[in-house]
């Protein structure tokens, strides 16, 4: 399941719902992304996440379908927020449920890597020097590349820096 929303989400309830009633699930892997108060050694007051409604949902669904094709998953969940978020706030939740932990972990990392390089979100950071659009990271492209090529035309490697995540 995928959701794109402005509001926060209930981590415990979402994770519990993922395996509720399915006793074939032996492991759930989860990633939660949070707003940090620093970027490239500069303080961040807040950030605003812009996205491309319609395409965002389509891409997340495609990414999720790809994970389900590649690993024996019982359930998956991606929730991605948009709008203005302050340090400490949750941005994204990615969760995968499988009989075994290896599939759950791999699929979760895959989803995060692909989401970071394919889902149409952009971060505008509020710094003391002014608002600044975050540039894509070569390290994210590299992380996504280890999973091989998607069937859909991917975003590729023309990115600016290899700084922090």
């Amino acid at each position: 399941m995928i959701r794109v929303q402005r509001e926060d989400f209930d981590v415990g309830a979402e994770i519990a719902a993922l395996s509720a009633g399915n006793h074939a699930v032996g492991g759930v892997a989860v990633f939660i992304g949070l707003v940090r108060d620093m970027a490239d050694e500069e303080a961040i007051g807040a950030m605003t996440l812009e996205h491309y409604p319609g395409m965002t949902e389509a891409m997340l669904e495609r990414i999720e379908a790809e994970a389900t094709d590649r690993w024996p998953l019982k359930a998956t969940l991606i929730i991605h927020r948009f709008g203005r978020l302050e340090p400490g706030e949750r941005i994204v939740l990615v969760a995968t449920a499988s009989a075994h932990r290896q599939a759950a972990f791999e699929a979760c990392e895959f989803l995060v890597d692909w989401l970071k390089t394919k889902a149409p979100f952009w971060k505008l950071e509020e710094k003391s020097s002014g608002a600044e659009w975050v540039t894509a990271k070569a390290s994210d492209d590299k992380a996504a590349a280890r999973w091989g090529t998607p069937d859909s035309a991917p975003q590729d490697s023309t990115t600016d820096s290899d700084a922090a995540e």
Partner: protein
Amino acid sequence: MKLLYFAWLKTRTGVAEEDVTPPPEVATVAELLAWLQTRGPGYAEALADLSALRVAVNQEYAVPSDPVGPSDEVALFPPVTGG
């Protein structure tokens, strides 16, 4: 043709969304971008570095040789930074 701009593409063009009618010889993504660059200084600046640009046609990532037509939704944006 419907055009959408996101992130700094929107800031630099000053436009979030617009309906345009390119000349009939504009048939591909590459030709559309070349035509857009001629539409004023904001566009010229926003589209100066095509390698920093991503294009989606009807919400699918597109390459320069992909066709575009009057009924398409074309989005221009920088490499994504979500997650």
